[in-house]
């Protein structure tokens, strides 16, 4: 589970408030979609959740561990897929996956089983022996996804995961996210693809100028916005208000 309490982050000595007193709770077994216009604070929030940025104030708790006080426990229990798949280009896909399995201490038997399964799921078995520098954007995204899944994280955090994925891989990822949450685990992802969020997410949060302006199930969002339309209409109404 994920718990954000009063989290704030500003840049330029406070001139730009990227995240402003954010309170958010994501329960186990839940897929949570995080929406917002460009520059709303989505990536900043995610980076604080995974330990890439320090919050100015507030607390972030992942699986009962505080990111500031117990960073290692937090990192062991989550996986992060960034919006831009920047990985070691001079390693082969296989070397990259083995590296991640080593640092997440995945035993030999499990790593073999999982690698085979996910490589097949994302159709990367043929390419895994090649250097990552030869991969397309989508293939890089897939190798980062596979690497993130190797230790079967309790909390799966993804920033714009569908960008660059082919339709089949995007479908497989969505299936996997559902399967993952059915096991009582948590998925938190940001996206601009509102149809995906509408269909896939149990709950949705909308952030604007660093503040959470709406949060809940689709029905709750419709009530909050007093709009019976699609998520797109609700999103536009809320963010342009």
């Amino acid at each position, binding site marked *: 589970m994920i718990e954000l309490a009063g989290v704030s982050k500003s840049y*330029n000595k406070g001139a730009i408030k990227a995240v402003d007193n954010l309170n958010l709770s994501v329960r186990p077994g839940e897929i949570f979609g995080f929406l917002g216009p460009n520059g709303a604070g989505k990536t900043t929030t995610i980076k604080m959740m995974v330990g890439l940025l*320090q919050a100015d104030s507030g607390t972030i708790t992942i699986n009962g561990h505080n990111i500031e006080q117990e960073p290692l426990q937090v990192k*062991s229990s989550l996986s992060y897929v*960034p919006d831009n798949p920047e*990985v070691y280009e001079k*390693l082969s896909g*296989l070397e990259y996956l083995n*590296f991640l399995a080593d640092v997440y201490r995945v035993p030999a038997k499990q*790593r073999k089983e999982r690698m085979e399964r996910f490589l097949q799921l994302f159709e990367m078995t043929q390419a895994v022996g090649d250097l990552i520098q030869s991969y397309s954007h989508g293939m890089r995204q897939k190798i980062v996804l596979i690497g993130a899944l190797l230790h079967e994280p309790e909390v799966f955090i993804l920033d714009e995961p569908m960008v660059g994925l082919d339709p089949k891989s995007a479908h497989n990822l969505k299936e996997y996210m559902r399967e993952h949450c059915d096991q009582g685990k948590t998925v938190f992802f940001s996206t601009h693809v509102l149809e995906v969020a509408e269909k896939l997410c149990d709950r949705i949060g909308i952030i604007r100028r660093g503040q959470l302006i709406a949060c809940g199930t689709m029905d709750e969002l419709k009530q909050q916005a007093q709009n019976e339309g699609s998520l797109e209409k609700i999103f536009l109404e809320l963010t342009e208000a």
Partner: protein
Amino acid sequence: MRLLTLIKMQLNVSFNWSALKWYAKHDKKKILGGIALLLFILVSLAPVYYFLAINFLETVYLSGYSLGQPEFILTFAIVAVSMLVLFFAIPFIMATFYFSRDLALLVPLPFLPHEIIGAKFSTVVIQEYLTVLPFMLPALYFYGTGQNAGPYFWLVGILLTLLLPIIPLAIISAAILFLMRVTNLGKRKDLLRYLGMMLMLAAVLGFNYFMTKLEPMTQEELMNLLFAKEGLATLISRVYPPALWATRALAAEGTTALLNLAMFVILTSMGVMLTLYLGDRLFYRGLIGGDEVTARRDISVDRLAKAMSQVSSPAWAIAKREIKVLLRTPIYFFNSVAVILIMPLAMFLPLIWGNAMEPILTMLETLAPLYLNLGAAASIALVAAFAPAASTSFSREGKQFWLSQVMPVVPQEQINGKIIYSLLLSLLGIPLVFLASFLLFHWTNQELILISLVGMFLTLPSITVSLLIDLLRPYLTWSNPQAAIKQNFNAVFGMVATGVLYYLMYQFAMYMLQQQYSDFVIYSGVVASSLLLAALPYGIMVKIAERRFREIIAP
């Protein structure tokens, strides 16, 4: 006009002008910190610069002057600087022309290949002034003030200094444009390119050998040259004839000076034209397809299964990652690995070929074995200290540093991985000791093991202090791998800090030698002091690493 725009943009990107202007406006602290840092580097390097450049060049001037050949200093400086540029520009040109990340942006724009090459060549020339000016300016100063030179000398002196790097850079550019064109084929193009760069380095060394062996002179001929007009200048400029033209352009009078100046300028212009011409003919053909993937290698089920089951500790996994990335990135390989192997060869082979080692060897033979063994061990450490492998270790992660930040491995273990990798790299100095033993010193097996072990311990302080510096201020926002090393002050800081630590150890070793302790005590003392001086930065790193990993913002 378009070329000028492109040059302006390239210079802006290379020197971070826009970023500096932004910081000057919005974050004065950062700019002041940068200036303080620069001053610190200049002050730290000042003593070394004074002794190695100023003092040395003054001696060269006075020697030439006493033989009635004051112009010798000019030829000497021009030859030295040109050779320096020629030797070190190979990876630099390769990285700038073929591996910078802006190429994907530039190639689709409506520029001709020679415009892109012209802009990139200009930025390399300007960056080479950092190598040229520190040696040429003192040479001009000693000659100009010593000979009461007039305004013509100073004007032409500045003009020639600015033109100086162009000819060697044009030679290297032509060779690299040709190399990349002919190797842009087949599955093994990376390997071919490594071999090509090695061949180029070998060619520079071979050229050096050829020149030192050129026309062996009798004692009488040598004496004649020493006392003839321009004798020394003629002798030394055999390695690089344009140096004599530049010297005459500065030191001769009337039409001779102007004629030689014209010759130098014409040759320089021809160098530029050749680069642009080859740029148009070869650049795209060497570049386009450089990243192409060869047909997928089907990985066998057995191999896949075996590879998937290989488990390593996190520290060892990190060390392996560092080594693989280093070996597979040509720029890192040349700056960190090739330098360890080639630099000592480049320094000593000419001495051996020129029979200049005889007196040095005779002097060394009078020393006790203890001194020689310690010296050899220190040379392993010194050679490793020149390779920026540890001092740019965090920086080289660049945009991938996020992985180090999110992985559940305590920073201490990540640091251990980097120490293992740096130590493995420093092992490369050991074969050179074996080579020196085979060629010159004929050490026993026991001595060779002892030298190698002490050498390994001696590299530890350099590794830990360099890693500490890079952890404190990693340079992660580079746009091409060359910048991660060459535009990274941490490499200089690492060397300066290592120099300070080694100086302390040298003093300690000298003290023990003066006290005439037994060999065992002295070796143990050296090893113990290495461990102590390595433990200090390591301890600081471990203490601050967790905080630093949280503070650093990955780009």
